[in-house]
């Protein structure tokens, strides 16, 4: 299924994004941000809490069109989005939630996804009956089921206990290895993404600007402890320089 390489990259050029405050004055949230994610690549977007990461994602997926700049989506721009909250339809079962978003997904694909994400026993449950961790996984399954050209995840592991977060990260890694998809993963935690991403974008505090782009050469499975530690040091040095 994967045709990595023969599809367009994701290209984002943002000059400026401001919000109109309730009080009437403008708040600039995003400054100059230019980033590109190659086809099939997993990119992570890291920045301090409240810097504008969700805002940037909303612009990329087309939910916010009130900004200066351009966004080019890969190919047909079929999107899989995992929002910061699960955003499931409470009145539909787990399976219906996934099928409504992905009407073309075959039974085999769904069986595979539910199996990988440990949801097989919960297909006929309603979201109100799920724990937060399970609901997050349903949101992941829904985003994968559409076989997206661009997968966007907004802090999908936040507020989960460390063990569960690690397991979900592993599941995500497995899914993107099995079917490579251009992915943009948002986080405010370097450690969270360092074993997952092929490329890391570091954003400054608000208004967010792109501080640095850091490609990671080795594939996920072949990264050594030392390499990961080096990347972490480099990123924190860059972040600190920006703060100073």
């Amino acid at each position, binding site marked *: 299924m994967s045709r990595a390489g023969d599809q367009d990259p994701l290209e984002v050029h943002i000059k400026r994004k401001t919000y109109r405050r309730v009080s009437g004055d403008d708040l600039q949230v995003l400054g100059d941000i230019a980033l590109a994610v190659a086809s099939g690549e997993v990119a992570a977007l890291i920045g301090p809490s409240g810097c504008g990461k969700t805002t940037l994602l909303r612009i990329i997926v087309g939910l916010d069109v009130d900004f200066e700049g351009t966004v080019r989506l890969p190919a047909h721009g079929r999107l899989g*989005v995992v929002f910061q909250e699960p*955003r499931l*339809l409470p009145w539909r079962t787990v399976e219906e939630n996934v099928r409504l978003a992905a009407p073309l997904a075959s039974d085999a694909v769904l069986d595979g996804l539910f199996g990988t994400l440990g949801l097989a026993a919960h297909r006929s449950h309603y979201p109100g009956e799920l724990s937060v961790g399970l609901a997050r996984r349903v949101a992941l399954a829904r985003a994968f089921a559409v076989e997206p050209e661009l997968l966007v995840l907004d802090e999908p592991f936040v507020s989960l206990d460390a063990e569960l977060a690690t397991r979900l990260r592993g599941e995500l890694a497995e899914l993107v290895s099995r079917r490579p998809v251009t992915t943009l993963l948002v986080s405010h935690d370097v450690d969270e993404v360092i074993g997952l991403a092929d490329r890391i974008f570091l954003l400054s505090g608000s208004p967010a600007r792109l501080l640095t782009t850091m490609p990671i050469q080795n594939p996920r499975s072949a990264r050594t402890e030392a390499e990961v530690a080096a990347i972490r040091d480099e990123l924190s040095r860059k972040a600190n320089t920006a703060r100073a």
Partner: protein
Amino acid sequence: MNAALRLGSIALLLAIWFLGSRLAGPRLLPDPQTVGLAMVAEARSGALAFNLGVTLARVAAAFAIAMVLGTMLGLAMGRRRTVDRIGDPWLVLLLNLPALVIIVLAYIWAGLTETAALAAVVLNKLPLATVTVREGARALDRNLEEMARVFRMSRWKRFRHVMLPQLSPYLAAASRSGLSLVWKIVLIVELLGRPNGVGFEIGTAFELFDVTKIMAYALAFVAVMLAIETFVVQPFERYVSRWRPRPS
């Protein structure tokens, strides 16, 4: 337990009715048995079924039209600020016009016709349905709508699976209050300008001071509405709220 309480409550009502009839005399308040026999007599002649049917058809038509229009208007007003600004004064006007004024004007302007009768009932119900659905539309979850948009759900899917379930408590509330309001107004409309129906029969009985017949028709109709509430409205509500975790 619940059924026993309900039955007990109905028995108490019948007892009070019976006592009241003893006190006031059978001319002013006939006892339950007399009213029951009158119902049977009306049913035998076929008049009861005919008049109930005619009235029920008017209730159903007016209710359906008012609910569909009210839902559309309420959605438009709840989701578009300009539409709300334009529609709101009309709504306030209709809400505050007495039902009788609307009915009389409808008959004067459109004649004593079925259309005028239905239009009068619809105009009475419409603003209430609109206001209730508008409340529901304002409370729609934007997050879910965004989710539906990024996953490219079709318009129909978004309506059927995202919006409608959120609106259903408001639609149920509008139906509940709507059904009882509509049938009360249909009766007045029939009394004032229709040659048949429960309202017309009650009007004739009023002229003859036939309290038994008035009560027979009123009770028969209440029974029908109760049956609709129990066998249609409540199961429907249970169905649309099946996903809600039960309170423990």
